[in-house]
């Protein structure tokens, strides 16, 4: 893999906004983050700490209040075509069939309908849903919808793949299957990935590097290199001694933040 310019770089990125009640809320503060080309970077932190905000800054959906965000060497201005995004909740178009959902990206980008559908059919096959091409999203299970969402994003061949807790709504078995599938797709596409999750084991199983964020306003607390060998099988890697060791190490770090966030939530509720 080519060393050199990082594919994503955040420099003291801060994002704050005004809530409907008029209060000023800072979601992330002074975040410094660098992701190398082809690197799989997982971001963990307490729920609701501002991890998703980090992704919106990289994707160009939201501008930083201060600080800088660079993608592939250029400052981010608006949505970048080389960035793919997989949402936490379903963002499939419910009125389109599976095939039309997957073909949406290329068609938006001006590819002729026929060619786009052909490519889409290929991607639907790659995620194992050829039999369901004509189905609508509401007819599919959660795992199948997630596969469609993956194909819909990957068909655009993004250089950067942003994932916002993509598997959190799935049951445990399906989640493990999807993790393996993601690693397989990633190993052929070799995009840089930022994978946001609150599940530490998921982060370690997938990533080259795990970034721990503090309880909101979130900032980067620490970074861990994950030196587990690839290719990995996520369902089995959890039993490796090195995996357990890393889990314990990072969890010690993460626990404090989770406690802070938990105490705050309890305080707010009281």
């Amino acid at each position: 893999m080519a060393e050199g310019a990082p594919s994503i770089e955040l420099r003291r990125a801060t994002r704050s906004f005004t809530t409907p009640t008029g209060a000023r809320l800072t979601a992330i503060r002074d975040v410094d983050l660098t992701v190398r080309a082809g690197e799989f970077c997982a971001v963990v932190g307490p729920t609701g700490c501002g991890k998703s905000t980090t992704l919106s800054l990289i994707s160009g959906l939201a501008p930083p209040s201060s600080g800088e965000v660079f993608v592939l060497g250029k400052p981010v201005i608006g949505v970048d075509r080389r960035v793919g995004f997989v949402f936490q909740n379903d963002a499939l178009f419910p009125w389109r069939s599976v095939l039309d959902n997957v073909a949406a990206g290329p068609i938006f980008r001006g590819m002729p309908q026929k060619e786009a559908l052909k490519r889409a059919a290929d991607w639907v096959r790659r995620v194992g849903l050829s039999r369901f091409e004509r189905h609508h999203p509401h007819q599919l299970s959660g795992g199948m919808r997630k596969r469609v969402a993956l194909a819909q994003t990957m068909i655009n061949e993004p250089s950067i793949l942003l994932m916002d807790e993509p598997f959190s709504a799935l049951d445990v078995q399906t989640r493990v299957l999807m993790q393996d599938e993601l690693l397989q797709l990633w190993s052929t596409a070799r995009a840089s990935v930022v994978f946001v999750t609150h599940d530490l084991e998921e982060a370690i199983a997938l990533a080259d590097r795990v970034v721990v964020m503090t309880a909101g306003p979130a900032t980067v607390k620490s970074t861990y290199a994950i030196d587990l060998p690839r290719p990995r099988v996520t369902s089995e890697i959890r039993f490796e001694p090195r995996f357990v060791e890393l889990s314990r190490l990072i969890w010690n770090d993460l626990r404090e933040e989770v406690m802070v966030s938990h105490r705050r939530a309890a305080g707010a509720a009281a």
Partner: protein
Amino acid sequence: MTEARVAEAKPAAPAAVRRSSHRRRLVVALQVAVLALVLGTWELCARTGIVDPFFFGKPSGIVQQIREWMAEGTSLGPLWVQVLVTLEETLLGFGIGALLGVVFGVALGRNRLLADVFDIYVKIANSIPRVVLGSIFVVALGLGMPSKVALGVVMVFFVVFGNAFQGVREADRNLIANARLLGASPRQVTWSVIMPSALGWILASLHVSFGFALVGAVVGEFLGARQGIGLLIATAQGAFNANGVFAAMFILAVVALAAESLITLAENRLLKWRPNQGPETGF
């Protein structure tokens, strides 16, 4: 694969099919019974003099009136011409009003500034009883079709506009963000995300607004016309012919119901992608 459980509709068990068809027959039978009871009571009361048929008509008289109109024509000419005139006014008012409503609703829904500027005017215009405008239209546009169409347009516009606007505003932020990230231009977002999301809202408003277009046409004819069902009602009223008023009403109801079923058909076709809502047996 653990997730190969797709909702491919399994044929229901024979017993269930039998039960549901049995139920349907029961419902239809009861509906007919209700109708017979209401009309029978009405007829009986009219014949025994409990209600005065001169003022309130009677079912047999209404039937006879319709027969007479069909056989000999009305005082205004053949019945079907009156129906056609009113139907044409209604459809034109409905079509133009709905189109304008959708265009303005989507434009304002997509543009914050426009929405903020026009918000107050839409509220004001919406609070005026618009039927009154019929008088102005008849004076300005004459006794012919344009005045009725104009009234229909005004009546339909605000309903469709309101729903289209709301539909656009309620479009899922996630879907819009996803479309943008997949490479959609603002125009593509409007056509492939906003419009399909708002379609349910818009179609729902069409049900109500067809009735409004019909009211516009009939009221317009009341106020001044040379032909149409509204004028037929006005004429019957002038002749103290209660049966005539009810007969014209019945004809309007048939037209409205036919249109309603056409809209439902279109709706089912356009919203095929929606999951079935609720159990099939209703309620």
